[in-house]
């Protein structure tokens, strides 16, 4: 009986010892679900949340990367537009010096090509401004083979979202139409402006982002809006659907010293600059939202990690103390066992 009891006590203590040892070696107090079912559940919940937060964080990083690239590009676009407007200002009243004219003309071509390269900018192998069709160059080259016409938008209006929270998505792209075109409103909407040489310019919204421009004599101003060109020799029409085509028109107007056309482009370029600024503001606000969300996620993850540690991690000091206690008990048990087991009446008989 004594033997059995000793054996039992020894094995019980050794079991405790083993459990404490496991706790110490893994650093966790929950090593299997049955150790603490409720704690385990909470730990799992926390871990799932941390895991999805990490994923949202990754999504935010991806989005920020793209938006930052777009932002940088848009800044260059704005700068270029400012140069274009300067060029217009220089050449608006006509340039008589042929050398200066050719310089301006070359300058305009250069600005146009700059804008084209910005509009066709790529980041991480994707075109930034072609909507969903990120594998397609958004704007055609000056001499596209085969046609469509030069500087035609090939992308679409797709807005790519990434998930930044359980219930929130964030658009991370700007389409070419948003960045490089503007509209006057519903098709048919017309705006009339008188330019410095007294001509009247009619801007009419066509299909998509196309804007048809008609330059008329001042006495023609009473004609009904949308009236087809009446064939007067003083009527001049052209159209564009994005800033590249606008700049293209501008460069040829400068080279031919077409003051009406140059002046007619003042208002569209103003509108384009405003548009570019709006887009930049939009990107800025998205980026700051992403930053805020990222900070929030980091905080939440931190809190969750703390809670996880509280639920799951063993208190090392306590565990070590308990281990010591069990150790002492075990030693005492062994010592007393040695004393008790050696006691037998038979030892004292001759």
């Amino acid at each position, binding site marked *: 009986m004594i033997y059995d009891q000793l054996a039992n006590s020894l094995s019980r203590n050794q079991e405790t010892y083993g459990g404490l040892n496991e706790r110490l070696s893994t650093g966790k107090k929950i090593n299997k*679900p049955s150790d603490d079912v409720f704690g385990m559940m909470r730990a799992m*919940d926390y871990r799932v949340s941390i895991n*999805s937060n990490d*994923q949202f964080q990754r999504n935010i990083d991806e989005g920020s990367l793209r938006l930052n690239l777009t932002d940088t590009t848009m800044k260059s676009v704005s700068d270029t537009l400012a140069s274009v407007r300067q060029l217009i200002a220089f050449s608006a009243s006509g340039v008589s010096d042929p050398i200066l004219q050719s310089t301006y003309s070359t300058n305009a071509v250069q600005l146009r090509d700059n804008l084209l390269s910005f509009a066709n900018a790529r980041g991480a192998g994707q075109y930034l401004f072609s909507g969903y*069709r*990120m594998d397609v160059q958004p704007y055609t080259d000056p001499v596209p083979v085969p046609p469509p016409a030069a500087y035609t938008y090939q992308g679409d209006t797709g807005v790519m979202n990434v*998930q930044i929270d359980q219930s929130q998505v964030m658009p991370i792209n700007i389409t070419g139409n948003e960045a490089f075109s503007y509209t006057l409103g519903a098709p048919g909407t017309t705006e009339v402006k008188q330019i410095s040489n007294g001509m009247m310019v009619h801007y009419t919204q066509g299909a998509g982002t196309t804007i048809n421009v008609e330059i008329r004599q001042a006495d023609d101003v009473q004609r009904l809006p949308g009236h087809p060109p009446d064939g007067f020799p003083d009527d001049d029409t052209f159209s564009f659907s994005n800033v590249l085509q606008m700049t293209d028109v501008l460069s040829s107007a400068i080279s031919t010293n077409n003051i009406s056309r140059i002046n007619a482009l003042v208002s569209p370029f103003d509108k384009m600059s405003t548009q570019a600024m709006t887009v930049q503001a939009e990107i800025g606000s998205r980026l700051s939202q992403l930053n805020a969300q990222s900070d929030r996620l980091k905080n939440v993850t931190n809190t969750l990690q703390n809670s996880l540690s509280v639920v799951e991690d063993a208190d090392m000091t306590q565990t070590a103390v308990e281990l010591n206690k069990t150790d002492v008990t075990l030693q005492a048990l062994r010592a007393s066992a040695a004393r008790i087991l050696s006691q037998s*009446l038979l030892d004292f*008989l001759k």
Partner: protein
Amino acid sequence: MSLFGLFDIGKTALFASQTALTVSSNNIANVNTPGYSRQEVVLSIANPVATAVGSIGRGVTVESIKRNYDSFIQSQLMGQEQSQGKSAAMDDAWGQVEQVFNEAGGIGLSSPMAEFFNAWSDVADNPDSSTPRTVLLQKAGALVTSARGMERSMLSTVNSANAGIVDSVRQVNTLATNIADLNQQIMQVEAGSNTEKANDLRDQRDAKLNELASLVDFSSFQDSNGSLTIIVGMRNLVAGDRTSVLSTTLNNEGSRDLSLDGMNITSNIQKGRISGLIDARNDIQSGALTGLRKLVASVTQEVNILHASGFGLDASTGNDFFNPLQLTTTNNSAGAGITAVKNPPDPALLPLDEYKITFSAGNYTVTNKQTGSPLIPPVFGLYVSGGTISLPGIDVVITGPVTAADSFIVSPITSAVSGFGVAVSDPRSVAASSTLGELPGNNVNALQIARLTAAAVNNLGNSTFSDYYGGLVSTVGVKKQAASDSLTFDNNLLTALKNRREALSGVSLDEEATNLIRYQRSYQAGARMITVADELIQTVLNL
């Protein structure tokens, strides 16, 4: 009384001491024999002779050799052995299953599942790139591997439980034969006597009974001739020197049932290792295993539904992401056959329930296999061979003659895990886009699939995948906790009872050493008495 009477008294003293020494020696020899009960001699005064001056004693006789034994403790001990046997088996089985769901050790489905859906999120971040798509297919493969590994582990626990039952039954039969043999010997030894003389045989039989008790619960009673009748599950296992053979049969579920004397006694077994194995096996099958299958089935279904509606970079559409769910039918009929097809074929309209079709008086009734209750609205009717039985999302056709004993089971989830696999092999076929014309940048479908993690799934009782899985883990944890708690309790109680038995029946070497000396001395004194008597007679002869 003659002088020679002294020899007789001396002789009885010698014999009594010798017997007592023998008994003590036997006790010492059996100090470590399990189940041995300490024996002691019961001495009494030999019939005295009446004389004129009063009665004079005639020495000592050994009345009997008593076994220190308490039948009450013994029966308590057997009961506790039964409880402990069950707890130990359940603790063991749930311990194995717990390891399958050991999220604390980083094992289980939680992280492969999260990573799978995260991979969809990554695809949504870069829908035109092939890297996240390739990663997605790898993560999907990892999810499949984990789920199948978990099912395999649980099935192996179930199988080892079944093997354990077969093994235990073999032990029960061996023990039954041993007990029947002992019964016979005890009957022979004790024939014609009113006292329990067969001490050692009875000890042996008690030890066998304890062994039997740890395997299976039984009731027993002792006949007047000393033989013990053992009843397991309301059928005789041992009666006198005869035994019935306990056997196992495979039931409809492919699990082992017990039968004794031609009757299925599975449900009558409440305790012992066999009962623990049966309970644990049934619990694992209907709980954790079915739960895992249901979870995997709904992941398959939900992902497939969305995936089929989307478009891959190669313009492919209508493809399943995972292998579609297959219907499994179980035929428990000798004469009839069954076929089941998904109708309509749309996976969105297939509830993940299992159905049982039973027959009575020419009519069929369908019940939900998990809950055992009839469907709502009920499905029943006159059985017509070859007629179509319409279950939610499934059409069943049974052909051939059926009997009331027949049943059929139709399940969309039984093979959900074993058939779980990634159906998409080309990363470009991963349908991240919701519109054909918006390739490759459209990520709407990938976003939707990634957001399934937060979606309440109808088939899982409107909980999310991870919540449902959490429920599974906690159920397993609670089961294991309960099993190990009751094992600790039963072990403690068993130890206490064994201690009590030891206190009464155990051999104390100190006590036996004392007895040795005592009877050695009394033997010496008895011998001395004979010497004295001899000298007295010598004296008389020398007169």
